[in-house]
């Protein structure tokens, strides 16, 4: 946050040009590669001070955060009209394909005619749209799934907090649980090898499916590699405890010569 404040300060102070162009802060609510949550209340304070607009990408927090699952703004208690544009992909909580973008009526109308990805691209298959509609209806009628998800995430956190050699580096409330090595071997490639061995063995021996994170050569930000676990409201308590115990056992054996 301090970095964001200083960047905004640098950009706006004494720079006449920034006053005339459109300025946006683009953030994700739950970051796919690290599981951290963006501190929206501070971002909104900064945005109002420096007069930027906020574009919030809620793919992983839509249907997850907030009392009724409405996302990051509800979670922080920020009124939703302070955020200018919210986009999200439906592949995560809503279990369909595609994405959507919301905002004020004028913003959305403008996008309908001039957004290249909307105008020049074929629209969603109808069955995916109707699946998304039913998913949202279900979420509105049954808010208990959110409670399930939250208890599952908490259970996994407590279960994995004492895994030998790995530590949880994602936010407590995030359904993407990110484990990274406590002591790195020094090179990203060997780290990744170790993590992939853990993931493979866990799958082979206990039929628990987890993944090691993968990065594209185009990525410019440096993030640590880790193991990702995605929690669902459909998991039962026994599933989660099984995953915790198997992960602890395997990581103890694989990482015993590295600690």
């Amino acid at each position, binding site marked *: 946050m301090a970095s964001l404040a200083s960047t905004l300060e640098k950009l706006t102070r004494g720079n006449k040009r920034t006053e005339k162009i459109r300025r946006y802060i683009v953030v994700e609510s739950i970051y796919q590669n690290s599981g951290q949550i963006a501190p929206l209340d501070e971002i909104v304070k900064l945005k109002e001070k420096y007069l930027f607009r906020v574009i919030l990408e809620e793919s992983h927090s839509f249907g997850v955060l907030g009392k009724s699952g409405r996302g990051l703004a509800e979670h922080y208690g920020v009124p939703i009209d302070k955020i200018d544009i919210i986009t999200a*992909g439906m592949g995560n909580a809503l*279990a369909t*394909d595609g994405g959507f973008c919301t905002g004020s009526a004028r913003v959305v109308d403008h996008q309908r005619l001039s957004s290249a990805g909307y105008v*020049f*691209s074929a629209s969603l298959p109808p069955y995916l749209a109707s699946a998304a509609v039913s998913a949202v209806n279900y979420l509105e009628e049954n808010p208990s799934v959110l409670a399930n998800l939250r208890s599952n995430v908490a259970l996994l956190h407590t279960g994995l907090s004492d895994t030998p050699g790995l530590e949880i580096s994602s936010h407590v409330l995030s359904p993407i649980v990110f484990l990274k090595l406590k002591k790195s071997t020094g090179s990203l490639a060997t780290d990744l090898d170790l993590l992939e061995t853990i993931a493979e063995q866990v799958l082979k021996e206990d039929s628990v499916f987890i993944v090691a994170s993968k990065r*594209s050569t185009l*990525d410019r930000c440096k993030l640590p590699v880790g193991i*990702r676990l*995605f929690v669902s409201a459909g998991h039962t308590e026994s599933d989660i405890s099984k995953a915790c115990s198997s992960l602890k056992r395997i990581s103890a054996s694989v990482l015993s010569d590295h600690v």
Partner: protein
Amino acid sequence: QDCFGRPIASAPDAWFDVVERHSNDGNKTLQRTTKTSKCLNLGSYNYLGFAAADEYCTPRVIESLKKYSASTCSARVDGGNTKLHTELEELVARFVGKPAAILFGMGYVTNSAIIPILIGKGGLIVSDSLNHISIVNGARGSGATVRVFQHNNPAHLEDVLREQIAGGQPRTHRPWKKIIVIVEGIYSMEGELCNLPEIMAVCKKYKAYTYLDEAHSIGAVGKTGRGVCELLGVDPADVDIMMGTFTKSFGSCGGYIAASKEIIHHLKHACPAHIYATSMSPPAVQQVISAIKVVLGEDGSNRGAKKLAQIRENSNFFRSELQKMGFEVLGDNDSPVMPIMLYNPAKIPAFSRECLRQNVAVVTVAFPATPLLLARARICISASQSREDLIKGLEVISKVGDLIGIKYFPVEQEKVASVDKLKKLE
């Protein structure tokens, strides 16, 4: 305003239901009514007629929906790779004639995410001036220098290539690391085929890589539906990278890239659209698999061959009739896309509304998809339209054309009539 974004209430087959909308405040906002009208569909990209329920495809799609559910909820590299996806990649590679293929969930993304991986700073992209905006976005996002050559003009392409190779990279004048020439098979706004054999010859001479975007031509042209390469007699092994989408001829959604095994292997490891984005929806994958099998004739019938013959017949018939009536129609023979020039932006709503009133649904295209004064109405022919459908469409368009005054060319019938008179006299 009411000409764009009309909601439809059924599958986009030859005839479909268009929802009527009315407005209380001068077309600023439009409310849907519950009434629908059945219209002849001359606007959907339904080239082979797979958009409606098909006897081979639909049962298999419903089965895969039950088995695999509507979405994989995961990226391809994590948990989203099902048996269907691998099967489709092999099938696509076989169909197109290349060693390997990779799939993406959205056609637009395929172009804009692949081009930055294939080429970066220090490379040169030479693209046709009328390329689709997904290619333009990908080229801009890659950081390579972009040069444009005049549409379908191999001589100008050669000029541009010579100049650029001689000049080298900007400022350092070192030789370019890579040169890629990007063309499309059928240009969606013009309906014309690309001049592939000559462009290939130029690229071979100057050792540039070629990237062919077959979004509209795969499955729709060529004797067995294999696209522009088959139609124009170019060997698919000569084109380095072939891209296509499944939305148009196969009735699904998504895109693919087919190339050599090494390129696909590199793409699988490096492309962000493959690593981070949710994979294609399994029923959509099954639809494409079944559609390709029908086209290849592997489902045991010859429906695929019939469809291909039907669409070629339909498009040639429609085009020649429109030209005889005096409309200005763009595009080459055999191309299922035919834009009718309207030129005047005021004629766009007139054409669209009149046609709808007479139960023919057309798509009108205005700025920014085409230049401001070159507005057009784009007709897309489908294999599921019968001869009577086409004749009805022609009648309606002819009447509307007379009303609006878009028959810019003199009608050819007069010449034929005068020749007959001469013969009778003799």
